[in-house]
């Protein structure tokens, strides 16, 4: 009998113990790793896995940046591959600390899905991939076609809205995973494949004969992609938000992973001093060590470095910066002051 009672007590403690939530930052520190939700099947340029299991890509670099800020080591990231359908549940239930999986910031996700979005890291728009010889050039040409679209995305909602608004009929072939869809498109099961344009650039390289396919000019939506965290932990939200801002600011001030040490010694600019933790108070207010943003820049780089490494002219994708330039160059990347 006593055994039974103690068993119940132990059980109750275990269950209620997990019920009392820790702050995300404490969880990360106690496990010494940031769990980052990324694209499961891989999106070239944004998140891919090489033969030895290492993740690389634009989204992955922001995971590493968060780890560099919180743990001082960009390599302390556990990646969790998530499909479009799994991603929000994984974040809501605490399976991942931060979701950086080419996820569009929408009002519905910000409210009903219980997400907080850090600043947009990539301004994108939805486009269409079609065969060059199909004669489909404008949106109107898509009338009466079959279109491959990933389910559980903003893409399928935009598609439905735009086609409906223009009175165009179409049939959607829907799958939760992008790989089978792309294969179906390659096999001719759909006339067009639609997703964010950056995704189209990357996924076109995976087709049997990429030169046969063209990306239509039409852009049918705004797709601001960025990291997100769950509601209820403002401290961690602030950290992720400012890790992104730090990469913007570093590009603006001309700080790179190579010159950051020199800048730190030589700079007289108090903006930079506060950002890099030479004057430690402002960074410590986040609950981070003073060198948190220094580590981000040192280990991962500024925004331009991250962009060029994964999507820039030296990569197969060569995506023009466009809106994704610093505001000083006419883009949309703008960091509030560290003060």
């Amino acid at each position: 009998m006593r055994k039974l009672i103690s068993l119940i007590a132990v059980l109750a403690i275990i269950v209620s113990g997990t019920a009392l939530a820790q702050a995300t930052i404490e969880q990360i520190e106690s496990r010494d790793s940031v769990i980052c939700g990324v694209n499961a099947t891989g999106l070239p340029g944004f998140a891919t896995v090489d033969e030895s299991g290492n993740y690389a890509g634009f989204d992955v670099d922001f995971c590493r940046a968060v780890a560099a800020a919180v743990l001082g080591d960009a390599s302390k990231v556990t990646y969790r591959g998530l499909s479009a359908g799994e991603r929000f549940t994984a974040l809501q239930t605490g399976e991942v600390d931060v979701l950086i999986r080419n996820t569009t910031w929408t009002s519905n996700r910000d409210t009903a899905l219980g997400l907080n979005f850090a600043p947009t890291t990539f301004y994108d728009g939805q486009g269409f991939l079609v065969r060059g010889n199909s004669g489909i050039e404008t949106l109107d040409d898509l009338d009466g076609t079959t279109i491959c679209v990933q389910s559980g995305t903003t893409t399928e909602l935009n598609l439905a809205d735009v086609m409906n608004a223009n009175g165009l009929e179409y049939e959607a072939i829907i799958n939760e995973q992008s790989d089978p869809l792309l294969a179906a498109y390659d096999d001719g099961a759909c006339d067009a494949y639609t997703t964010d344009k950056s995704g189209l650039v990357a996924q076109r390289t995976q087709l049997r004969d990429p030169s046969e396919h063209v990306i239509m000019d039409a852009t049918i939506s705004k797709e601001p992609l960025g990291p997100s965290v769950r509601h209820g932990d403002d401290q961690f939200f602030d950290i992720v938000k400012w890790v992104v801002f730090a990469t913007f600011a570093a590009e603006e001030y001309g700080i790179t992973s190579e010159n950051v040490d020199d800048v730190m010694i030589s700079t007289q600019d108090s903006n930079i001093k506060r950002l890099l933790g030479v004057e430690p108070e402002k960074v410590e207010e986040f609950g981070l060590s003073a060198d948190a943003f220094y580590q981000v820049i040192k280990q991962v780089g500024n925004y331009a470095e991250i962009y060029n490494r994964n999507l820039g002219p030296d990569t197969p994708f060569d995506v023009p910066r466009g809106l994704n330039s610093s505001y000083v160059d006419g883009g949309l990347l703008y960091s509030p002051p560290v003060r």
Partner: protein
Amino acid sequence: MASRTARPSSEVVPWYRNVKLIAVFAQIIFVVIVLIVLAILVFNVSRGVKTLGVRTGFGFLADRAGFPLSESLIPYDQNASYARAMLVGVLNTLKVALLGVVLATLLGIMVALMRLSNNWILKQIATVYIETVRNIPLVIQIFFWFSVLLVPSLPSGVNALRFGPIYFNNSSGLIFPWPFASSNFRHWTIWLILALVLAIGVYWWRRRTLLRLERPGNPFWPAAAAFLLVAAVGYFIALAQSRFPENLLVSLDADRGRVNSVLDVNANGTVDNQDTPYATVPVIVTFESASFEVNPQRRTEQRKEINSAFAFPSLRKSEFEEARVEFVNPDLNDRLSVHYTGFPTTGIVYEDRNENERFDAGEDLDESTGEGFEGNDYKLVLFIEGFKRRVLTERDGETRVPRFDSYENASFERLGPSPLAWSFPNFPTDKTLVTGGATLSVSYLALLLALTFYTASFIAEIVRGAILSVPKGQTEASKALGLSNNQTFNLVVFPQAFRIIIPPLISQFLNLTKNSSLGIFCSYQEFFAVSSIVNNQSGASMPIFFILIGGYLIISLTFSFLLNLYNARTQLVER
């Protein structure tokens, strides 16, 4: 035991050793533990939901879904509610499960008989099939049917395989003519009900008579004959009764390639906003002449090496009384000629190099090098004179005709308003979207085939086991009575095996139904797949979770209840 009974009965057993008391106490404790665990779970969930600020409750079901679904048994578009989207999912699950159950049972029985047969080859085929299919996970089989077999091997888009009015391609799937209830179906309904009542009466009467006379025979066939007879008579009577409404307008929307049929509510003779769509009017559309431009490069995907070949795979010669192909660029009219390989739908554009006004493959066109005429150089215009096509307006009051660039004098001939009308596939010339007819999508076929073959392998073993469980003496006795092999099986062995088959068969049916939730792997929009889309778009994961559990439970329990009723009827009555 002996020593315990030997004790004096006056000795009181202490409460902690009282078996009855302990039993009651243990059960109370068990219930308390379950309640505590449940309470902790509920507390945890409600706290988590509060922290995240996510949506709870079922209110979201009325919200606009916003996403498309590619197949639906009921009208659905993105403006429908989440609830309707999920209903579409449930119906799609039932659509694959019900047909799957029937096919798997038939295939299973066939394979079982093959495995029991004395024919060595049949026996081996059945054994290999069962042992292979039964031991491969279902997900892999679904993947095999969808991504390995069907999608890559079927022709795409307009190059669809064609068997008469049936088309098969990897974008739309299997498309075939399908009857549907026209607006005059109601005249026929009463006859159908009458036929059904009569058929049931005949069934019972024949059954009783056969039992009384102790004669073999199946009461089903006379009943079926009675049904067909009454239904057929009723059909013609209904046909005679049917009239179109006086104010029905049929018009052509040439820009969109559609025929509209509307009721002219305000009787002004033209189609306007006040008019309401009128369903299912069969018409024959006739054009005095019509033309559409075709970019030949687009139609030569199959024969890329010959740029000058053209094909209109979806057009049938019988639809045109006359057709000719002309070049848009007048300069080319002098240089080039057309050689039809299948008038007027396929042909080769050639340059008459030896000026014999006849196509000569060797001289006129070098097929091996692919030296032809670029599609950009010219366009072909297909003129059609006296175009006729039988079309039916569909449920929303409109249907598609091929889209012409220009046409003259379209006219409509309304066909008799038969209660049951056929919808024929209207296969477009350049896009993949098909209207009319009925479609079984590639996703559906892949899931159906995978579920059928997988479940049939289990059913086959159940049937085989049941047949083998009938004592050999039964067979020998019926042989001794002079029954043939067929009679032995149909009258003696199978009825006895049947009782053994039914209970395990029910679980296989339930398995198949639940396994249909793997349809998400082949893009089939069944209950689970739709729910996960709704979950993702609305964020209401907890309510959807409960809807899923409840939904599958209801489907399974209903299935199980109906089959158990049947089971109770077939079991031996023991007294």
